[in-house]
């Protein structure tokens, strides 16, 4: 009994010693040369990101709740005017990109070159300009809805290069960049495959895959800012 007890104590203290050692070392190693303020910002950034995720979840729940209330109102009340307005709202949401939609189209996957060659490093990575070229070609060829990595393209969507990632509608995405478009799959496919800029990118091994699809789902545009701030300073003029 006494022996067993001692063994337990022994193992306990050995572990304890190792732990103190490891902890101390990791604390010492991470601190001295590292830029402490950079680390502080990084910690804060991580916190804000998690907070952002939490808020987005809450937002989705609230939106669903409100939508349900409207749907209930539509079915419960026999008010002609309300039902008419609900139909009109659904139609305008569809036109404004505020509704998730499906249809035939194409999927384009773009990824940086696997390795740097002899040219400048910039020739081997995808820039916002490259994505804009693809978007422009899709729009010119009758695309009716487009998304980049799940972010709906609306009138003021502009992918911004940020280091090795892009920001679309204020959200950051790393490669591969996936562009989906609903429209005539054959027309869109040919437009992208014959686009000179795509050929240029392929010359430096930037990987671009184009695929026709019978069904594509494109998310609705998500509004993260308040209605008030969106309408700040503007006034509607009757035609």
């Amino acid at each position, binding site marked *: 009994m006494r022996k067993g007890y001692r063994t337990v104590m022994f193992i306990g203290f050995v572990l304890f010693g190792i732990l103190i050692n490891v902890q101390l070392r990791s604390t010492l190693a991470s601190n001295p040369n590292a830029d402490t303020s950079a680390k502080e910002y990084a910690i804060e950034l991580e916190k804000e990101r998690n907070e952002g995720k939490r808020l987005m979840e809450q*937002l989705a729940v609230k939106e669903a709740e409100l939508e349900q209330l409207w749907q209930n109102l539509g079915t419960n009340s026999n008010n002609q005017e309300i039902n008419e307005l609900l139909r009109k709202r659904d139609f305008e949401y569809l036109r404004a990109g505020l509704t998730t939609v499906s249809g035939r189209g194409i999927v384009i996957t773009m990824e940086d070159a696997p390795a740097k060659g002899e040219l400048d490093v910039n020739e081997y990575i995808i820039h916002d300009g490259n994505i804009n070229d693809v978007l422009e070609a899709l729009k010119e060829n009758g695309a009716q809805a487009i998304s980049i990595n799940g972010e709906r393209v609306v009138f003021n969507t502009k992918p911004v290069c940020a280091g090795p990632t892009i920001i679309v509608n204020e959200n950051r995405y790393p490669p591969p960049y996936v562009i989906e478009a609903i429209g005539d799959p054959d027309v869109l496919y040919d437009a992208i495959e014959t686009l000179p800029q795509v050929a240029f990118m392929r010359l430096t091994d930037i990987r671009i895959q184009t695929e026709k699809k019978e069904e594509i789902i494109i998310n609705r545009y998500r509004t993260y*800012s308040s209605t008030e701030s969106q309408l700040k300073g503007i006034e509607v003029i009757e035609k």
Partner: protein
Amino acid sequence: MKLFKSISLAVVCLILGVMMAWQFSSVKQNQVLAQYEKKNINEIFDELLIEKNNNENLKLRLQELQLEVDTFKAGETDVQENIKALEEAVLLARIKAGLETIKGPGLIITIEAGGIKTVEDRHIEELINELKATDVQAVSINDERIVGMSEIRKAGDYIMVNGNQLVPPYTIKAIGDPDNMERSLRLMAGVLEKFQYYEFIVNIKKEENVIIPAIREEYIKIDKLTPVR
């Protein structure tokens, strides 16, 4: 004596547990932070600012939604209130889609060739993209409203927007924060500096009341889209 041993054993185990938890969390945190190691401090700081701003907006939007839910529940029987809310939602969607003519503060930019180089579709595109990056609320080129699926293409020596041919001088109107927009256009090595090099004649005017017309109803096509609930 026996009691003392039990207590000391308990204390050791407790400390061991706390140490392990501490160690575990610090290792985990280091793994999370490792992804930032390759970035410099400015990048991290910029990202932090964007993220903070986004979260602020999200909070405001949440409050707004909560208020809508509350008023809805409180006045479930108030038909007039509901009609008003629905009409507002319709109007907001129509503004977003570019189907309403709107007025607000912004910039009026005219651009025209001054040297040998003509103004091409890609130059206009570049300028428009620069504006899009600044919270712009509406943009037009020679009064053609830019909507989600608007295309700006080359048509001979001129450009074509929304299927209509436009001729220079090109007048770009933008509603939004005028100072902000001008600043982003005048950035070093930015779009205006490039235009100067091409000898384009560019004129930027800040205005209190910029009027941007709506797009034609039939331009926005949705026949290939099926709504998904």
